[in-house]
């Protein structure tokens, strides 16, 4: 179309070149675009209505499969949850039969550290209130003074401990058997249900259940003062050992299967002195462990703190406080 076009200009009565004006171009372009747009929309609509893009096909398939497998697994999951609940029931019943007590709530077992939240709230509130902050500071100061006084007596005790050579290594400071997951503390000091006649009696030691033959440790340095071997009685302490640690402390380990020491032996903390059994009046293999201070039987839990962090120690205390059935 290289032809040059002319038009007849009625004003000049001449033929003049037809110029391509900008508005012409613009109009042309708009024409193209609008038609193109109409086309595009039409094509898309038709396509959408009748065809699926590859990614759509893919997605549809994936969704379908995900859904169907999900439903299958969800059903299985529901079944599994029911079975788990039923087994947890059985577990609780077994616990009750063995301990004659209610199982511990799970929350206690987690030894929660919910304390941080509480303090954060107080802190956030407190900083906004000056008076509160000041009075708190005063209280803290007073407490510090008191603590300093307390500190002194604590220092005195530590001083004594260092003076009385060997006090620290003589105290019954560990558990008498290995207790890796803290599962073995069965029944603590205090009023407990007697497994023979089911009446409540004073249980003056801690029962640590363990498989027969588990080694029993001396819980502090000392001297073996009493042993009983070859017990045939069906009641009482069975085979047992008593160790004198000095400073008024004596420990006793009962219901043993076998002894590893004799009267007069010097023992160190952690030394194997015997093996767990069920001799004497015992309904399960365990060591009945007593701490005797100045001839009075006291709660051993107050001493066996070594090698335990706070959380583990709290767990032991919780276990020991259950008012359940003792093993002897």
């Amino acid at each position: 179309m290289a032809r040059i076009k002319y038009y007849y200009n009625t004003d000049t009565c001449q033929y003049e070149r037809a110029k391509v004006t900008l508005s012409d171009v613009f109009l042309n372009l708009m024409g193209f675009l609008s038609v193109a747009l109409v086309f595009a929309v039409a094509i898309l609509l038709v396509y959408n209505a009748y065809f699926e893009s590859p990614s759509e096909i893919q997605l549809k398939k994936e969704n379908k499969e995900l859904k169907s497998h999900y439903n299958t697994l969800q059903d299985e999951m529901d079944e599994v949850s029911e079975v788990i609940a039923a087994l947890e029931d059985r577990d609780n019943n077994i616990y009750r039969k063995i301990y004659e007590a209610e199982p511990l709530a799970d929350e206690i077992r987690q030894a929660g550290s919910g304390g941080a939240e509480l303090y954060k709230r107080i802190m956030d509130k407190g900083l906004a209130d000056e008076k509160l902050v000041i009075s708190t500071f005063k209280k803290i100061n007073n407490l510090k003074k008191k603590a300093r006084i307390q500190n002194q007596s604590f220092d005195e005790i530590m001083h004594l401990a260092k003076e009385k050579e060997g006090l620290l290594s003589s105290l019954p400071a560990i558990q008498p058997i290995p207790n890796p997951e803290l599962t073995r503390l069965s029944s603590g000091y205090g009023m407990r249900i007697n497994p023979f006649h089911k009446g409540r009696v004073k249980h003056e030691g801690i029962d640590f259940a363990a498989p027969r033959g588990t080694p029993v440790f001396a819980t502090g340095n000392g001297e073996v003062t009493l042993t009983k071997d070859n017990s045939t009685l069906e009641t009482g302490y069975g085979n047992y050992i008593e160790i004198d640690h000095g400073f008024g402390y004596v420990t006793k380990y009962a219901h043993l299967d076998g002894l590893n020491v004799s009267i007069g032996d010097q023992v160190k903390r952690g030394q194997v002195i015997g093996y767990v059994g069920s001799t004497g009046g015992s309904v399960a293999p365990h060591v009945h462990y007593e701490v005797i201070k100045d001839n009075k039987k006291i709660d051993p839990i107050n001493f066996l703190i070594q090698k335990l962090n706070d959380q583990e120690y709290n767990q032991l205390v919780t276990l020991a406080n259950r008012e359940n059935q003792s093993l002897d």
Partner: protein
Amino acid sequence: MAKIRYYYNTETCKYEPIKATGKAVFLNILGFLSVSLIIALGLIYLYRANFTPIKESRLLAENHDLKVEWNILKDNLVNAYSSVNELQFKDDKIYRVILDTDPIPSTVREGGVGGHDKYEGLMSLEENQLVIDAYKSIDDIKKKLYIQSKSYDQISNLITEKEKMWAARPAIQPINNKELTRLHTTFGPRWHPILKRMNPHEGLDFTAPTGTPIYATGDGIVTTAYPSTTYGNVVFINHGYGYQTRYAHMHKYIVKRGQSVKRGDIIGYVGNTGRSQAAHLHYEVLFNYKPVNPINFFQRDLNNEEYEKLIKISEQETIPLD
């Protein structure tokens, strides 16, 4: 465009109007449409490159939701696992220790879960690992739950057995005697005042007024209840597990042969029948047919300490009543 266009015809040297032939118009329109089409395609391309069509975005949203639900399912699986492990832990580490029995071996607990092939052909999509893992986990959990349930069966049986055994042992005193003050003579050879010689005394004597109730000291079955010349009115009970008890010199007995008794049931009353010096209960315990010291078996209201003291005291000699 009503303007008439002219072109300069070099042959006629005149300006002639441009006629719009059908062919020309047709080609024009065709050209116009093709360009529009090309632009349209260009627009479509741009659109698809930058926007997701509605259908697709809906599918994507659905896909996303499904994946969220899958994650929740995964979390539930994790929780289920930890519940199962908790049960296993308590079973092996606590209950079986106290019940004096072995934990279930881990070979049994972990025991083979179905091979890979079972799951491979499962799906064709990209995310299949997620789904395969879930199937595997559920199978694994189900297996563990099965084993745990069998373990509980075993434990329940053990507990029942133990309870029966503890109920059968002669574990209490045959007459009400909180401080064992009525214990007169104990187990072992004694000087017999009538026979004038050392006589084995194979039981315990409890002094008590005639008519004091006597209790069965453990669950069991009465094997004999009859008047004997030496034992007087006597009742024999078989408790099973090797244990038997005998209650002699009764004033009268209120059970008969074959009767089932429970610990604490009254079986008769203290008397002075048979070869006896005074109203008392002569009580024997046999283990595998051999007489054993009954003091072995009861310590009601006594703790270990007091009990040991008592044993020492009771080992002193006294004159028997029979």
